[in-house]
């Protein structure tokens, strides 16, 4: 569909999809740090900070292999120390759908609504030819840094690349997500309109002075 095959020697580009990318999970409130005596200690990140910020800290961390897509621009991908990827997740899981749409009509309605209203996810259709056996979504909120040279030596983990059409849309969606700025959309409402808005907002909203 929207993917193309890419040779194992081809440079890494924005839109390349990899499997088994490491996602390192850690908590600043609970870390297992290895001290100079090679013994693990439980502490918070704040406790682990020392007066010498130049000395790195060693810790025991969980690393989960995930499927992910390169978001780093091509010019940076050729020389940067680190590549950035975003995690790819099963579409229904990512969008928290309790059950799959029952037919194509329902699917397209869901996909179109999500793409128009939720910039966080970028839809990836399934394609068994590229080991993408389920409808998936890129989650722009889960960003993974990976050393570029290491990933270049493991290009066999690359399973697909977005084709030209898909890449153009991906680039736009990516840009839009990271260039959004937060604003309180209710600012031009009258007091009565704001009251109605606040009742259905689903989250806490604060009235401006002219709405009180």
């Amino acid at each position, binding site marked *: 569909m929207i993917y193309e095959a890419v040779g194992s020697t081809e440079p890494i580009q924005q839109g390349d999809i990899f499997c088994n990318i490491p996602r390192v*999970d850690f908590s600043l409130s609970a870390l297992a740090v290895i001290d100079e005596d090679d013994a693990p200690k439980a502490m918070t990140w704040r406790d682990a900070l020392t007066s010498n910020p130049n000395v790195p800290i060693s810790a025991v961390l969980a690393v*989960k292999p995930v499927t992910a897509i390169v978001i780093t621009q091509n010019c940076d991908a050729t020389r940067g120390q680190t590549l950035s990827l975003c995690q790819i997740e099963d579409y229904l899981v990512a969008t928290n759908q309790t059950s799959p749409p029952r037919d194509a009509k329902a699917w397209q309605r869901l996909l179109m609504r999500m793409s128009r209203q939720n910039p966080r996810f970028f839809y990836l259709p399934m394609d068994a030819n590229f080991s993408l056996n389920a409808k998936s979504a890129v989650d722009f909120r889960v960003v993974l840094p990976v050393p570029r040279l290491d990933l270049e030596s493991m290009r066999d983990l690359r399973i697909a690349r977005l084709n030209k059409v898909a890449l153009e849309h991906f680039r736009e969606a990516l840009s839009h997500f990271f260039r959004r700025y937060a604003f309180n959309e209710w600012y031009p409402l009258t007091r009565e309109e704001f009251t109605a808005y606040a009742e*259905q907002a689903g989250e806490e909203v604060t009235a401006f002075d002219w709405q009180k």
Partner: protein
Amino acid sequence: MTVGAADSVSPVTTPIIVYDENLSHDSASREDSSHTRVSKRGILWPQIIIASSIMALTTPLVSFPDLPLSGLTNLRDQTESWAIEKGRRITLREARRIALQAHYQFEDGLRRDRIQEARLMQLSMNEDEA
């Protein structure tokens, strides 16, 4: 995971259970029962690593000195002033548990985040239909 394996299974939906064989664990421990529960859910099991330079993950602008790694003496001299006074000593098993707990917290937080997002989307859809 080999390229062949990647061709034959979906990396998105197929659960892969990977164990850190270097860490011994008591099969009767509570930790292992939690492993079983997680495994039955078909969740990709995280590996446990000893991660150095954790600061690089959180503060990418920090530059590190060239620590001479040839010879423990040099390394020890460099880190002599680095003595973590705080924190309690734990076993490697407990360290692994702490690491896995952080993983579960992240997954749980991601799930709650998506639930909240879906609710907001539903509100928006209800409004459109109204």
